[in-house]
């Protein structure tokens, strides 16, 4: 399908971006890295959009931190995030797992962190990772800023908690306690394909094995990226070892993932257990726990 937008806005300030988005409503769509935007546009999936709002001039490409929080600007590319010095932190191991292996380079250099959570498809790599890191989203709009948990940001396919005139300014990752590690794994058909399933785990330990907190993010297992709350609860206050992992993984059998052409629900339920186990092992090792 031929995509013929009528106008291309390059706002120079956050306020100008909000005014444009608010003024044009559903006819306007944010262009961040463009990698999802053009694919959706050329497939005819955003037929009402004829105004492009390019937010690349808003100085939202950054990775900053203070004592409590890592802040990632929404137009930071996946390449820029992967090159950031904070990637060495054990609690961000899941991000490192994903970004070191992210292909192809052409997408990595263009796709943005904000775009990953706003593209509205449930199998991209960053959303489950950011869920497991208990991230928050900073949304800017006509009424000012809202800070919302990433978990409640996802509503459905192609639908997020964004109201008229709003867009994502920043993603915040709270810094966890010491002895925290995270890990990521996904299932792809080949090196450059999008994932069929992805999983990410973060664990905070007390001593060498006892779990204080655990967060697990899953992609491809529902219409949106989700937390595996039941599985997480199994670990809290317990040793993370093979029996508890098996207990936790049993709860994943109740998930009802949408069927994919090369991965029916039963297959997804079997494979996600393998992926989650793998991410828990990685997280545990990075948190300084005894290997299992």
């Amino acid at each position, binding site marked *: 399908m031929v995509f013929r937008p009528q106008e*291309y806005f390059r706002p120079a300030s956050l306020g100008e971006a909000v005014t444009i988005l608010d003024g044009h409503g559903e006819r306007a769509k944010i262009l961040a890295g463009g990698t999802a935007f053009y694919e959706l546009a050329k497939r005819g999936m955003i037929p009402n959009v004829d105004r492009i709002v390019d937010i690349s001039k808003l100085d939202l490409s950054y990775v900053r931190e203070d004592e409590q929080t890592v802040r990632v600007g929404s137009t930071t590319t996946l390449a820029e995030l992967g090159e950031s010095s904070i990637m060495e932190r054990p609690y961000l191991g899941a991000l490192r797992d994903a970004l070191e292996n992210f292909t192809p380079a052409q997408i990595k250099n263009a796709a943005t962190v904000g775009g990953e959570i706003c593209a509205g498809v449930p199998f991209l790599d960053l959303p489950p990772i950011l869920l497991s890191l208990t991230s928050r989203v900073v949304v800017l709009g006509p009424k000012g800023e809202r800070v919302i948990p990433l978990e409640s940001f996802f509503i459905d396919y192609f639908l997020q908690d964004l109201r008229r005139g709003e867009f994502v300014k920043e993603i915040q990752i709270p810094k966890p306690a010491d002895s925290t590690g995270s890990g990521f794994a996904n299932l792809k058909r080949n090196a450059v394909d999008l994932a069929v399933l992805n999983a990410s785990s973060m664990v905070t330990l007390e001593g060498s094995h006892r779990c204080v907190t655990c967060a697990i993010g899953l992609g491809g297992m529902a219409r949106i990226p989700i937390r595996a709350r039941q599985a997480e609860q199994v670990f809290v206050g317990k040793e993370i070892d093979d029996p508890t992992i098996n207990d936790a993984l049993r709860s994943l059998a109740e998930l009802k993932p949408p069927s994919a052409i090369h991965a029916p629900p039963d297959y997804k339920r079997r494979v996600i257990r393998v992926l989650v186990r793998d991410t828990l092992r990685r997280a545990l090792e990075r948190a300084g726990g005894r290997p299992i």
Partner: protein
Amino acid sequence: MTHYDLQLKINQIDYSLTVGPYESLNRVIRERLGLTGTKKGCDYGGCGSCTVLVDGRPVYSCMYPALRAEGKEVTTVEGLAKGDDLDPLQEAFVNYGGLQCGYCTPGFLMSARALLDRIAQPSDRDIRYALSGNLCRCTGYQKIFRAVKAASEKATVGSTP
């Protein structure tokens, strides 16, 4: 429909033109500026034949709005050779049979150039990783891989005093 003024810098040459909101960098490079070395294949980020460098990084020019390239340095395959002297990568592609029909070649060259500019002595994995966003339906990739490896080794030998 609104059109916009755009100052573009491609292969160290400044261009001044007016473009529409729908025009990709690929379309402007090929159809407006006549730099047809850069190809258009799938037209949505799957094949890599449109790869150009923006500020030294490979991107798919089919998914890159022309208006976003303002103020950035764009390099296309035409920018590789210095006059009649081919880039060492181009020579290696010739010497190692790294092309047959040649349609994907400009994209592969740009991805490989970005790699060698960033890592002088890439590992085998680095090379495969850097080329993973480019498809070739003729060569089976091995000859392209060997060409890039040979170019990197030659560059390393050449830089040794």
